[in-house]
């Protein structure tokens, strides 16, 4: 860890101004990922701006849907009555992530900004384009069992680790952001980036921007949704595959589906092809299977993660079946 300055911000404006002034500064939310990265000498901020005192903790209903404060804790979000009754898929996804202790500390905004758990990213003796642009990707030809099957590039095959964000992608959320000039909102599918030629960039925030809230539009998934996570142990493990699925049904006809996958890409992978296929179809295992096959047809495995294609298909079908059951 390198020494750093620690400042507690008292207002959003102050936090944004201070961070904008220093290219090597970082916001400190729950610290559940940043502090690990600092101890591993991966993140080297020279200044931490603690935003823990800012009033961004509210979870509320809005005219168009729901707003989750960026600094509300993951545990409080998952257990909030509004979330439990209207966004059960989100609640389940949060509770499938990390451990109880980490969820108690972790914030909603911070959850979106988690960095990959690729072990080569964490090991500073290894090449990693995400950590040191241009140094190469050790995982591409290395131990890549946990890595991407969608949207990877030869520069980076890492996956994005959050569970919560997978549900947010399926729920078509937007991210509310403040910078030194104004507020803006970013559609969830545009928030996280694919690695392309710049895997050092995880998301579309610019330096200084602060997430203030996550907004979720009203939806018709609450009675038919599921979050299924497959992992190497039953708690405290990142997803091999996870699927968030919501169905809006009229009788047994699917009006629309919201589906996203975790553990498969550099961002929460919205299963748009499967969603498109299911629109207007009857909710049957045969249709779920075809939707899953259509989605997984685009997957491209690495040397150690071929199983993710079959597992992805099975988990997609399973999540849709569970959503149907309600």
């Amino acid at each position, binding site marked *: *860890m*390198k020494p750093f300055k620690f400042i507690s911000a008292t207002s959003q404006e102050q936090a944004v101004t201070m961070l904008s002034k220093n290219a090597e500064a970082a916001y400190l939310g729950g610290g559940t990922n940043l502090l690990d990265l600092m101890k591993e000498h991966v993140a080297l901020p020279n200044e931490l701006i603690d935003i823990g005192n800012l009033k961004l903790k509210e979870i509320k209903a809005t005219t168009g849907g729901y707003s989750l404060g960026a600094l509300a804790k993951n545990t409080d979000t998952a257990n909030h009555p509004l979330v439990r009754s209207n966004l059960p898929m989100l609640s389940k996804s949060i509770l499938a992530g990390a451990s109880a202790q980490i969820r108690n500390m972790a914030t909603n905004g911070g959850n979106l900004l988690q960095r990959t758990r690729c072990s080569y990213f964490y090991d500073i*003796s290894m090449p990693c384009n995400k950590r040191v642009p241009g140094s190469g990707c050790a995982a591409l030809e290395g131990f890549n069992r946990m890595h991407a099957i969608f949207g990877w590039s030869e520069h980076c095959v890492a996956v994005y680790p959050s569970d919560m964000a997978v549900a947010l992608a399926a729920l078509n959320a937007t991210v509310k952001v403040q910078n030194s000039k104004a507020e803006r909102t970013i559609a969830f599918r545009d928030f996280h980036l694919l690695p392309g030629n710049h895997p050092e960039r995880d998301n579309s925030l610019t330096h200084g921007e602060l997430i203030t809230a996550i907004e979720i539009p009203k939806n018709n998934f609450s009675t038919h949704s599921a979050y299924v996570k497959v992992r190497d142990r*039953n708690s405290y493990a990142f997803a*091999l595959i996870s699927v968030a699925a919501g169905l809006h049904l009229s009788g047994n006809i699917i009006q629309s589906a919201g589906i996203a996958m975790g553990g498969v890409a550099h961002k929460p992978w919205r299963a748009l092809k499967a969603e498109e296929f299911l629109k207007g179809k009857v909710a049957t295992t045969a249709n779920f299977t075809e939707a899953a096959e259509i989605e997984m047809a685009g997957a491209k495995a690495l040397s150690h993660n071929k199983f993710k294609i*079959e597992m992805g298909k*099975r*988990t997609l079908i399973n999540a849709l079946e569970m959503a149907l059951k309600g």
Partner: protein
Amino acid sequence: MEDSKKSIGKGIDRIDGILKITGKANYATDYPAKNMAYAVLFKSTIAAGEIKKIDTSEAERYPGVLKVITHENAPKLNPEGGLRGGALLQSPQITFHGQHIGMVVAETFEQATAAAHLVKVEYTKKSEKIDFEKLAQTPEMPKGKELADLVRGAGKSALDTAEVKVEETYETPIEHHHPMEPHSTMAIWEGEKLTLYNGSQIINGAQSAAAATLNLKSEQVRIVSPFIGGGFGSKGGQWANLVLAAVAAKMVGRPVKLALTRQQMFNSVGLRQRNIQKLSIGATKEGKLLTLAHEIISHTAVDSEYIEPCGDCTKIMYAVPNSLISYRVVPMNLILPTYTRGPGKSTGSFALESAMDELAYKLNMDPIELRIKNEPEKDPSNGKPWSSRTTVKCLQEGAKAFGWNMRKLGPGTNKVGDDFIGYGVACGTYPARQRESSAIIKLKLKDRKVYATVEIAASDLGTGTHTILAQTAADGLSIPVEQISVKLGDSDLPPAAGSVGSVGASSFANAVNDACTKITHELLAKSGKQFFVRPTAAQLMISENTAEFETRSNSKAPADAEKFSSHSFNANFAEVRVNGITGMVKVTRFLAVTGAGKILNPKTARSQIIGGNVWGIGMALTEESVIDPRYGNFATRSFADYHVPSNLDIGNLDAMFVNEQDIIPNKMGVKGIGEVGIVGVAAAVANAVFNATGKRIRSLPITPDKLL
């Protein structure tokens, strides 16, 4: 004494429990010392070669840095002093990725950590040996004589004529000990005397290894280690951190704390080696074993050899006229493997007991029946009589308690919702031994009550040594446990065996018991009186109004012990649920039934057994360390990647002990439970997975992808 009045055999709470939960039990780096400095190790980033140049200038200029120590300025140490794993900063040679190549000593841990990142190292690389799969094609003969091929009868050739055969290969990955307390050392010099606060499973072993390595006399070194936060073998032998703390303290002239980080633990303190085991069993149609061959390939280090004896269970478990056990080794550029809970037996039993399950399936026979059918009357490896053997009892009592009759013989036929339910059984064993140990008993009379202090350089891994020794002394002296204090974990105390290889409880308890007997005799002699009913030590202290009295005694295994084969035995029962869609496995119930002689404290014993079970379940389902063959580093290098089981992975665990009295291995009839708790566990789980799904997974761990 009547049994009901005895403390031994009662599941009393740990006498050090309150100290621990209130934070008053000091572990190695908890001891206060003035003027402390902090050492942080830095490590090689290549697997084989030489340090060409090491530039420490920037690190030396960093605020708070007192010294940067590398092979260029470290004092000359004795690499043959008995420490394991090398990495003593004696030369520029690199033999594994993550080898210690230096340390920064600074005013604070944070400063030392930051400065360590400023050291610049240039290497000359050599070709490294790290691709196990490739190297295992051409393994070498082991150097150790005890690992020479062991052939009985016609060896493996009897397989050709067998009616029923199983020939399969089983693989187990590298695993790590990862005790809750990472290895850490505090070193304080007073003149030429050195005190090392360091978690040590063998106090006197740590003392002599540290002294010899530092070119000191044993009496110049004191090891203090009353509490240890687990070790599982990794604190049995001692590693470089023990003496490097002393080197740093000497060079800066201040007390030094050196604590490994969790990530550094992966390549600093040994590991469980990777093994490929081929099992060949030949049997009659009735299930009588004709031949049993266990051929093992294991990795070891390039400059030193340690092989866990995977064939040990196979040597003694079943009656079979022809057998072969062979070891081959693959030297690799990795830290030296070392004793890891149930060394050899846990991994070996996975292969043997999986193969037995495969044979039972082929014979369409209940796996318990198959085992009972092949129960040996004598130790097949040496023809010695058993001092006692409880395999059949463990199987039968366990089957009843577990509800084995609910098992469905046909795999994949027991389904509830998406889950397949399966039952598995597997046996295990571990030798029972007593090692030489000494103890002092000090008695004091105060207000007509007798207080005792037990002194012995035993160790307590957290398993309850303090408590069982207090119970032993309570019975030996006839005073309540509350009036006994136990001093251990200090090399200034009478020398003792270690908490290793399941010898701790038998060696320590017999030493204390003998000292109690001796002090009672001496008090009797001192009184000069004749008694019709022999009085206890406590009664003599009171009747003779003796203010203080003490004695010391030394204990060894009984002379006849060697004429018998003495082991603990167990039977493990697992119930698993396997999700048919995702392949995720949950162990919903697990029962270990153990025959381990006298159980001194059923409560701490149960904890130790179920702790072994948990690790065994981890071995079966989650734990695997992966090496990147291009670099020789661990690709799984933190607890995010190296998965130990979580609470949710562990269902309902239970431990039972069968009643067993066997005073042949030692007078108290204690066989030891530390190791046997993990033996057979992984096979029981893997066999249950087969029973649930029909899929035989022969390569651990059984992760969801293997069950798709």
